[in-house]
């Protein structure tokens, strides 16, 4: 029940006073209530959806930035790792 999944808004409309829209989750489509994000989202935006309700707009810039930070961090580590391995390999050579 706790898992919120990000999906992309395909359309939005009004259902007797309630803003709703179709959201695509990697091929699976669901009708989602947009009331809590109505002021900040447009068709095409990504939202985190929980039990049929969009609870936030996914900040794409932040998503990319986090990913880049993580990638840099891990690439650095990779290099250090490889250097360590090379050192170790040298030491065992006769």
């Amino acid at each position, binding site marked *: 029940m*706790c898992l919120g999944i990000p999906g992309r808004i395909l359309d939005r409309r009004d259902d007797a006073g309630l803003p709703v829209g179709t959201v695509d989750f990697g091929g699976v489509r669901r009708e989602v209530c947009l009331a809590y994000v109505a002021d900040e989202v447009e068709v095409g935006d990504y939202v985190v959806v929980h039990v049929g309700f969009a609870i936030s707009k996914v900040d794409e810039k932040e998503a990319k930035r986090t990913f880049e930070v993580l990638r840099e961090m891990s690439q650095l580590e*990779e290099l250090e790792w490889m250097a360590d391995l090379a050192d170790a390999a040298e030491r065992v050579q006769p």
Partner: protein
Amino acid sequence: MKYLSEYRDPEMARGLVKRILDTSTRRWTLMEVCGGQTHTIVKQGINEVLSDAIEMIHGPGCPVCVTPLEQIDRALHLATRDDVIFTSFGDMLRVPGSECDLLSVKARGGNVRVVYSPLDAVELARGNPDKEVVFFAVGFETTAPANAMAVWRAHELGVDNFSVLVSHVTVPPAMVAILEDPENRVQGFLAAGHVCTVMGWDEYEPLADRYHVPIVVTGFEPLDILEGIWMAVRQLEEGRHEVENQYVRSVRREGNRPAQDLVSKVFRVVDRGWRGIGTIPGSGLGLSPEFAAYDAEIKFGLEHIHAEEPAECRAGDVLKGRLKPYECPAFGGRCTPESPLGAPMVSTEGACAAYYNFGRVQAGAAAGANS
């Protein structure tokens, strides 16, 4: 390395794991609050690969697991009534009550229906004016806005054959209960990203301050969790105790204001019992007096239904982090996901089920059960 094979980006995960292991000068004890994170941590073996540096205690963050037996019994009572269509999220159906579960009531002909959104239950009420539709409103702060909207919507549309059986819980009072426990070992928290998406993180700052614990708002992907752990470890190593936000792509400091507004209109803060833990003051939401007409407990007079929890289930110790699931004598023997004794074995987000499903080998060996 087998635990890393499932990562979407094993290289990145490995980098983070190494960083955490290198940064730790001692073994720290962290708690993830959310059951969704417990599921990922145990499934991906994050607790195993980090075990030299970090002990992960799995917190009480699975609303299915903490819903009190009494509320389950009340749900069962309603579901057997001829005039009621009882609606619920799917994961509540197998939670054992004193005598049976909702699924077996359904199998015996009870009108129990699974809904994806609480608004579906309101629609069901509109389509069945001759029946009473009751929705089982459980969950943390993440689910509260959805459940509040269902009540609000029923009110707006004048749907008076709709009501809710409420068993809402909130996270910060539970964290206080854990921190106040004289046997507490938790030194830092991963706060649940989606709870904070709704609530923001203001209310965690006094906790970090008062109890000197780092609290990192964390997302749900394996890499999110690893980064959250790394941020918490860095704080501990540097002697800091602040609230930090790892899950920036979804969580803003002030949270989702429109959602908070409707929740505080429809609900009010109440004392709430947690299965296996007992009553935690101010840790729940109940309907506010203006919406009492939608309260199933009042509508159907359910106050007389009380229940004692079975002594054999050690859920309380598991949820407080005092016992690993496989240390419970019933684990994997008399208690399995097929026939659960307690709620943490029912939900896939429950700590006991997570260990049973993904950690069976180590857990079995450690417990001396299950070959």
